[in-house]
C-alpha cells in the first residue's frame, strides 16, 4: 500500500467515525428521554392508570383516564377543524397559489408557523374564553387547530408539488376539468404524503401545553363536555410535575411516558404511510 492509500484510508476511517458519533449524539437525546421516562414512569403504569381518574391529593392510586380521553377529544376536535382547512389551503397553494393571493397566504402561514404557541393560546383565550366567561375544551381545540393549519397547509403544498406536471397534463388532455384534475389525480397521487403531514401535525399538537393553559385549563375530574374545562396529558404533566406531592410526580412521569408513546405510535404510522407512497409512485 502506498502512503497515499494509507492516508486516504485513515481519513476515511476518521470521518466515518466522526459522522457516526454525531449521528449517535443526535439520537442520544431521544434515547435518554425515553430511558428516563421508562425508568421513572413504567412502574406506575397499570390497568388502573388507564381506567381511573385522579384521586384527591394525598391519597394514593388513581389514574389519568380523564387526561387520556381529554387529549383524544381535544386533539380529535382540533384535527376535525384543522385538517380540512389545512389540506384545502395546501391544495390551493400548490395548484392555484402562483398569484398575489397565494403569496399572501403562504407568507401568513409561514408567520403563523413561527408564532409561539402560547401567543395562539392567548388569542384563543381572548376570543373564546373571555367573552363566554368560561374555560372550555373547545377553545383548546381551536387553539390547537390554529397551530396545526399552517403546518398541514405547507406540508400538503410540498407533497402536491412533488406530483409530476406530466400527470396533471395527462388528466387535462383527457378532458378533466381543473378541479377534478386537482382532486382525482394530483391530490390522490400525493395522498400518502398528505396523510403523513397530517399525522405529524397531530403528533406535534398532541404534546402542546402552553396554548391549553388558559383555554382547556385542565380538570381533575372526568369530563367529556367540550363546553367546560377538560384535562389533557400535557396539562396533567404540567400540574402534577410541578406539584408538591411525591405521588403526583410519580403519575406525571407515567403520564409523560404515555404521551410519548402516543406520539411515537403516530410517528410510526406516519412512516408507514410514507413508505407506501414511495412504493406506489416511482
Amino acid at each position, binding site marked *: 500500500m502506498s502512503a497515499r492509500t494509507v492516508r486516504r484510508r485513515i481519513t476515511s476511517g476518521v470521518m466515518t467515525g466522526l459522522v457516526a458519533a454525531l449521528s449517535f449524539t443526535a439520537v442520544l437525546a431521544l434515547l435518554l428521554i425515553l430511558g428516563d421516562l421508562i425508568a421513572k414512569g413504567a412502574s406506575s403504569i397499570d390497568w388502573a392508570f388507564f381506567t381511573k381518574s385522579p384521586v384527591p391529593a394525598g391519597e394514593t392510586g388513581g389514574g389519568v383516564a380523564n387526561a387520556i380521553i381529554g387529549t383524544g377529544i381535544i386533539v380529535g376536535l382540533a384535527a376535525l377543524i384543522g385538517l380540512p382547512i389545512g389540506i384545502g389551503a395546501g391544495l390551493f397553494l400548490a395548484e392555484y397559489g402562483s398569484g398575489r393571493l397565494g403569496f399572501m397566504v403562504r407568507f401568513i402561514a409561514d408567520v403563523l408557523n413561527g408564532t409561539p404557541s402560547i401567543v395562539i393560546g392567548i388569542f384563543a383565550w381572548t376570543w373564546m374564553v373571555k367573552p363566554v366567561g368560561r374555560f372550555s375544551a373547545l377553545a383548546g381545540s381551536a387553539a390547537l387547530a390554529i397551530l396545526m393549519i399552517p403546518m398541514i397547509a405547507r406540508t400538503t403544498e410540498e407533497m402536491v408539488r412533488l406530483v409530476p406536471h406530466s400527470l396533471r*397534463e395527462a388528466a387535462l388532455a*383527457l378532458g378533466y376539468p381543473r378541479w377534478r384534475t386537482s382532486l382525482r389525480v394530483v391530490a390522490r397521487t400525493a*395522498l400518502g404524503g398528505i396523510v403523513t403531514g397530517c399525522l405529524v401535525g397531530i403528533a406535534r399538537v398532541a404534546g402542546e401545553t402552553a396554548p391549553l393553559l388558559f383555554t382547556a385549563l385542565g380538570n381533575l375530574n372526568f369530563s367529556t363536555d367540550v363546553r367546560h374545562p377538560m384535562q389533557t396529558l400535557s396539562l396533567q404533566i404540567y400540574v402534577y410535575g410541578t406539584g408538591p406531592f411525591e405521588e403526583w410526580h410519580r403519575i406525571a412521569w407515567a403520564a409523560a411516558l404515555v404521551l410519548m408513546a402516543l406520539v411515537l405510535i403516530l410517528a410510526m404510522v406516519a412512516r408507514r404511510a410514507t413508505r407506501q407512497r414511495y412504493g*406506489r409512485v416511482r
Partner: protein
Amino acid sequence: MAASANVRLRLETVRLTALFDRNAAVREVSILFPAHTVTAIIGPSGCGKSTFLRCLNRMHELSEGGWVTGKVLLDEVDIYASDVNPIQLRRRIGMVFQRPTPFPTMSIYDNVAAGLRVNGRRPRSEVDEAVERALRQAALWDEVKDRLHASALELSGGQQQRLCIARAVAPEPEILLLDEPTASLDPAGTQRIEELCHELKRLYTIVIVTHNLQQAARVSDYTAFFYMGRLIEVGRTSDLFTKPQVEQTEQYITGRFG
C-alpha cells in the same frame, strides 16, 4: 397538400400562431390533416412542433403565458371560437405524451376508464366493453387481461405507453395526437407503437410529432417539416423524403443540420 375530394377533411389550421407571452413559438402555420391519415411533424429541437401539437387540443393555453392567434378547424368549426368549451373539446381529441403518464393511484382498468368516467356515469357493462375495446386497439389486452385491477405501475415502460394510448382512445376521440410517443421506449416498444399507428388510422386521424426521420417515413402518409416555428414544407411522405421542394427540408432530411 393534395387532399383528394373523397377524403373527408377532419382538421385544419389556418395561420395558426402560438405565443408564450410576446414570443411566437409557432408562426402562421396553415396545414390540412385529412381524415384517417397519419401526419408526421418533423424538425429540429425547439422548432415548435410540440407547441403546435398542443394547440390542436387547446393544451397550449394551459402553459404559462400561452396563447394563440389564427384558427384550428375541426370539421369546419373553429375550436378557438368563444362558444367552444376547451374541456369538452379535449374529450374529442386524444393525446399521448413523450413519457408514459399512467395515473399511479389507479389500476390498469381505472386508467383506461378514466376518460370515460369524466363524461358522466355509465353502466358498468358499457365501461367494461369500452375498456376491453381500447386495450385491444392499443394491442395490450392479451398482456393485461388477467390483471386488470393491478397497479398500472407494474407494467413496463412500453406497456405503460400503450396503456396511455388505450386511455386516450377509450372515449373514442376523433383525433389522436402523439407527442414523440416512442422517445422513452426501446426499439421493440417503438416498433409496437409504430404498428399501432397503422392500425389506428382506420379509426382516427393521427398527428404524430417525432424526432426520428425513419419513424416519420415508416408511419406517416403526410409529413410536415417545421423549422424555427414555421412550416417549411408539407406533402406526401414519399414525396417529401425523395424529392423535397425546399432546400432546408433537403438539408434536414439528409442530416446536414438539426
